[in-house]
């Protein structure tokens, strides 16, 4: 079986002449079928840029991107995507937002409507089916945004700092929520995060990337068995891994202090 995602030797620069900025320098990323992989790295290192390349919004200078074994470099519409901000159309109701995303992915409107009606109660949004986005809290909007990605009939989900904009408490709830949903559905996921704990809690594998030009400097197999419990952070092993990743990131002076929760 082909991996869900292969990124091979992808480089990318912005600008030209003296102002050229090399953002990605030979990225190598693999996400196997049904695997949850996290990308962790400094701010401005090119994580969002990598997603834009995978999504076909930008073209790499060199290298190749394969999804499900097929070369899709520069092609759009092969991934399910959850952006950092919820990106809901303000003039569409929650249901209609989900229907829009799914119909772009080729799902017939009726089927999309049926699925969103079925799923909204499951993510704690019963009764919000025909509400407009501005009447929902930030966390609720992120859940809609996630559901939209989850229901899209694509093999690979790309999550760009899904909870980055949320307060610590909501973030904690959302991580546990995502953990339970993902363990029940086992999609192939590539997630960007700034939080070591989040990466340890959710992923099968963690890729640590360097400041620009970004490359993968370390790959960590997360050893915790699934299904994982939400009090994983009390496990001494969890704290050892956290310590090790923290040292790795700070030795590369790549960690922004704000991102680490003091616990």
């Amino acid at each position, binding site marked *: 079986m082909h991996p869900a995602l292969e990124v091979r030797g992808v480089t990318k620069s912005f600008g030209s002449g003296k102002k050229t900025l090399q953002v990605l320098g030979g990225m190598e990323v693999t996400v196997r079928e049904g695997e949850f992989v996290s990308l962790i790295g400094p701010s401005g290192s090119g994580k969002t840029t990598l*997603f*834009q390349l995978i*999504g*076909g*919004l930008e073209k790499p200078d060199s290298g190749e991107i394969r999804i499900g074994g097929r070369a899709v470099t520069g092609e*759009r*519409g*092969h*991934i*399910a*995507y959850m*952006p950092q*901000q919820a*990106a809901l*159309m*303000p*003039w*569409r109701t929650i249901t209609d937002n989900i229907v*829009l*995303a799914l119909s*772009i*992915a080729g799902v017939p409107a009726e089927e999309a409507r049926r699925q969103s009606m079925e799923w909204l109660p499951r993510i704690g949004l019963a009764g919000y089916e025909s509400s*407009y986005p*501005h*009447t929902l809290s930030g966390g609720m909007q992120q859940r809609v945004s996630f559901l939209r990605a989850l229901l*899209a009939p694509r093999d690979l989900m790309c999550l760009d700092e899904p909870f980055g904009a949320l307060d610590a408490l909501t973030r904690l709830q959302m991580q546990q929520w995502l953990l339970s949903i993902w363990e029940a559905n086992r999609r192939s996921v590539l997630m960007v995060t700034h939080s070591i704990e989040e990466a340890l809690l959710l992923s099968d594998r963690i890729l640590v990337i360097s400041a620009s030009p970004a490359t993968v400097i370390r790959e960590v197999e997360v050893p915790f068995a699934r299904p994982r419990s939400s009090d994983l952070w009390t496990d001494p092993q969890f704290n050892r891994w956290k310590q090790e990743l923290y040292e790795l990131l700070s030795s590369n002076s790549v960690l922004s202090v704000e991102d680490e929760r003091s616990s």
Partner: protein
Amino acid sequence: MGDKLRFAGPPLAVLFLLLLIWQGAVWLFELESWKLPGPVEIVREAWTIGPRLMEHTWATAQLAIIGFAAGAATGMLVAALLHLIPGARAALYPLLVLSQNIPTIVLYPLLMIWLGLGLLPKLVLIILVCFFPIAVAMLSGLSQRDPRLADYLAMIGAGKWRIFRDLELPGAVPYLFSGLKIAAAYSITGVIVAEWLGASRGIGYFIKLSYSGFLVTRVFAGVAIIVLLSLIVFGIIVAIERWFTRWQPRKEGK
């Protein structure tokens, strides 16, 4: 309903007060009606020539509505085309602005020379005065799209047309309506100009006729009808706008 009344209350009260002062001044200074008739006099005069006035009003309203609809369609189409065709906006936008510098009073006789005396030159004039504010408002709305939403849609595979239909167009609706409100007022003054310069019916014609007979009270009656028409059209557009932008958060009490 109570909300709407509260919203309409203050301006209506001010209007009533102004009419009262006006009428008071006319009585107090014993102004003759061929100089400045009072509101009571105007209403009485309008009442006596009622049926004829209604005919003229209907003619004007019909022309304004048809012209406005055609102008709105033209304006939206122009905006969509300038937005969608690469380079069109940069090339044609300055010419569009230039076209608005020709006064309607100069333009209309030319239109009559080219298009005859019938309905056509009037419609063309109204379309010309209407389409511009609509096209400009909608164009700026279309280019105000949220880049994060656009990137999101592109990432999940939306094409240019899809982004136009589901992001740029709905996002432009609030802008479009501010253009429509301006254009509605323009369309009525456009009709008046056209009727004044070359017609045998309509409020513009009626006012011109009243002027030449020094029937100042009737002139005022005509003006009052223009104001009423404008208010009605404006109200209709605001109602439609509210329906289209019902998703927008509304501030309480405003």
